[in-house]
């Protein structure tokens, strides 16, 4: 193993310790009566409520349907898991210190095995809670109804929508695994250089990054700024928060206006605009080239279209106007819209 490879593995091992402080999984229970939210966090050694009394409140609700109470002390895995993850971290550090590539293979293999076993075990517990119902004492009995929460995703359980997603601790584990893979890539190529490792790390980080832009002109979705239905995506834009929530806009100027009003810079949000020449493709606003061309009647009237920076000159050339960068677009929109008192009240971005 090269020095870089060993460094990466050591970093990966240290990152595993993130699982000791950050929750691994998060299950939200959404219902009208709980505007403040209700849910639980699965941590490496316990299960807690998202808010201090959530777990007790969830257990209180579950007694109506005959579900047994969730008691962290009764789940032996929660006592074992710290040792398993801790052991994996120690093993990784040892492998990094010794620099033996076989140990790195062993570390990655162990990681994958433990991850699979862990997820299966988690599913098994969810199955048990959801199906092992005390029908004799259940107060609300709905024929054929079981209450297993989803492993990943959302599911309707009576009046609650259960949403289950990996939390930051698991993201840490995922990044650690990606770093381990990077270490392996570097280790496998003797001539590996920093650039290659950087690429691997970039891949690893990208794997953990928020989801990219998505199609927005579907199902009559309306613009999050001006509320018009988005019918033509080619003029559109979107803002994706760090948490992955997508705000969609029917026009670049709506994206700009929203951005100007809500000031979401620096929180990890990304801004995307549709590549006019390449339908279905999205370009980050900061990279895009914008053209104001009155031949392209954009829905909001500023007639802005965007192109990828490496778009073919001819494609841009067809647009009859000057090309500009995102900062100029913001200035333009600020002048056109920014001081208008008639702005619709756009919702704030969830941070």
């Amino acid at each position: 193993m090269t020095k870089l490879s060993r460094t990466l593995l050591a970093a990966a091992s240290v990152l595993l310790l993130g699982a000791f402080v950050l929750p691994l999984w998060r299950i939200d229970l959404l219902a009208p009566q709980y505007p403040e939210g209700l849910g639980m966090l699965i941590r490496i050694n316990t299960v807690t409520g998202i808010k201090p009394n959530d777990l007790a409140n969830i257990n209180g609700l579950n007694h109506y349907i005959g579900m047994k109470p969730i008691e962290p002390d009764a789940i032996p895995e929660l006592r074992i898991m710290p040792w398993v993850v801790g052991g994996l971290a120690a093993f990784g550090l040892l492998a990094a210190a010794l620099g033996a590539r076989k140990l790195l293979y062993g570390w990655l293999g162990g990681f994958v095995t433990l991850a699979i076993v862990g997820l299966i075990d988690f599913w098994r517990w969810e199955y048990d809670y959801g199906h092992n119902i005390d029908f004799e004492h259940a107060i609300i009995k709905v024929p054929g109804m079981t209450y297993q929460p989803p492993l990943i995703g959302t599911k309707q359980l009576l009046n609650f929508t259960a949403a289950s997603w990996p939390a930051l601790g698991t993201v840490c584990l995922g990044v650690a695994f990606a770093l381990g893979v990077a270490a392996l890539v570097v280790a496998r190529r003797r001539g590996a250089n920093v650039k290659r490792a950087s690429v691997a790390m970039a891949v690893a980080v990208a794997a953990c990054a928020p989801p990219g832009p998505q199609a927005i002109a579907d199902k009559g979705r309306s613009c999050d700024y001006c509320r018009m239905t988005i019918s033509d995506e080619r003029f559109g834009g979107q803002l994706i928060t760090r948490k992955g929530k997508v705000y969609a806009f029917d026009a670049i100027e709506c994206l700009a206006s929203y951005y100007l009003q809500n000031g979401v810079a620096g929180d990890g949000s990304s801004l995307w605009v549709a590549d006019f020449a390449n339908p279905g493709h999205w370009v980050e606003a900061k990279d895009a080239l914008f053209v104001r061309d009155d031949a392209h009647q954009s829905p909001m009237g500023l007639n802005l279209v965007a192109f990828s920076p490496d778009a073919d000159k001819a494609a841009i050339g067809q647009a009859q106007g000057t090309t500009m960068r995102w900062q100029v677009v913001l200035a333009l929109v600020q002048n056109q819209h920014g001081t208008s008192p008639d702005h619709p009240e756009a919702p704030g971005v969830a941070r």
Partner: protein
Amino acid sequence: MSPLQLNRRVVMSAVGVAAAAGLVFACQTTRPKTTNLAAGDVASKVYIAPGQYDEFYSFLSGGFSGQIAVYGLPSGRLLKVIPVFSQNPENGYGYNDESKEMLQTTFGSVPWDDSHHPELSQTDGIPDGRWLFINANNTPRVARIDLTRFETDEILQIPNAAGGHASPFTTPNTKYIVSATRFSVPIGAKRDVPIASYKENFKGTLSFITADQPGKMDIAFQILMPGYNYDLGHAGKGPSEGWFFFTSYNSEEAYTKLEVNASQNDKDYVAAVNYKKAEECVASGKAKPMPATYYHNYTDPKSRIATAEKKTSVKVIDPRDCEGVVYYLPTPKSPHGVDVDPTGEYIVAGGKLATVIPVHSFTKLTKAIEAKQFDSTIDGIPVLKYDAILAGEVQKPGLGPLHTEFDGRGNAYTSMFISSEVVKWKLGTWEVLDRMPVYYSIGHLMIPGGDSKKPWGKYLLAMNKITKDRYLPTGPEMAQSAQLIDISGDKMKMLLDFPTIGEPHYAQAIPASIIKERSLKFHNLAENGNPHAVRAESETSISRTGKTVHVGMVAIRSHFAPDNIEGVQVGDTVKFHVTNIEQDWDILHGFAVLGANTSELILQPGETRTLTWVPKEEGIYPFYCTDFCSALHQEMSGYIRVSPAGSAVALVANISPKARAQMTGGAAASATKGSK
């Protein structure tokens, strides 16, 4: 450029030009205005301009406040709080000598209760606005409120009962209101029994109370029932007039951990009572008199003094002695509300744990009784076959159906506690037509006249149990929340949120025009029948009988007469009989004395009220008017001098010379000496 691209560009330009006017400024001006217009449209539906009146009076029970709150609809403006079962220091109800007997029971004075279901009196099945009835759940009672004065005039205690929940629903001509027991208890002489002997000793009762004559509420008869929990009721109407329907749960007869143990059976029962048959039983002597003590309290409208009368016997019908009086209709599951549609044919039960809304047919019910389609008999009560009486089931209505009201256009609206919504469905086809989420966890809902033969089906009021973030926060304890929904169209429209007092369990509403013109403006002083009434300043008085001092006082803008009193001694009981001799609309006075161990008096024009005061220390005590009445309201005050017990200070007051001259006897003689 390909022809296709050219074509696209041409089309886009054309569309652009055509739409330009509308679109160019869309982001800046058009859209926000549209948004405001939409909001303004809803706002205008609930906006009552200053000086204008609401379309409906609505009466919301106060729940654990024990009172009734009157709101105008559609504005949601609070018009009045009517004190009923709880003392009300705001106006002295239940504190002053005249009204305190209203709260008398066999347990002594009970100064609080849990008021649940307001019910308007009806004529031919339609609310008539004469009276409003309401029940007390904790210490079972029913009250009559007069709607010319918005005052509680009459309270009847219900014997052989605990938890007066299924009450006080009325028959179509207000011949009876009812009260059924939510908590079954041992009845009769032997009441000290082990709780575990529940099945053997605990009974429910269904009480029918005569209600069509003020001052004469009484229990016509009680029906002795198995020890289930009787929850709600509604009278039949039209073809089903003469029948009364009560839900019951806990057919398991559990007496501990009811939330589990009373939720075991897949079906409980709606009790269908043929009260015409019951009347026949009473007439033919099959109802047995049973010793039972209970109070009937009535405020005479002339004297406006409440008297409490103790009663000692009640007529009880055992269904075993009287065939055809009661039938059980199996109903899933732990049913709560039971509501009869305007035609009188459909009986809708809200099984709070059921996954469907079952609807029974009155036609089928009568046929099943004729054909004796019985599953079994419980304590002389035949249980009809579910399939024989079922009109239909509303499938997948939502979670936790509780109560149903009707719009008179063939639609029913059911509140769903667990899924927190109002569900509109069609009678006859049982299809769900619309849903409206409500915030949060609705209990009752109410449509003006929605439980009667003639609903005024324009609005629906949702009464929600949980408030959380609906209003500015006020700490852990918040007002509960009502929501007004427009039901005049195919789709329900949410119009308004407004906070309420206590916990409104149910409400009634009636067009304002029916009540408004009859509302009393003041009491005619000449007809004031209070024995201590003082009709003119020249009739004020002061007198002593042993250790009791009576002051006959008047209040008129802006003074009391007398306003200087001396000769009261520590240990005396002073009775201030204060008459507001104003004969003018909305000129009320108040009366409060420093250190009095009771509430103030609030005096309506022409009314006499008495405050009882026992001074404990010598000194000078001011009294004053508490209800801002006039420009010199702050001057409307006086003093009482309290001397030690046995003091030689004579009892005197600055009563009028004419009054002095008219007074006779020792007390009057001392009173005429004037102040020392």
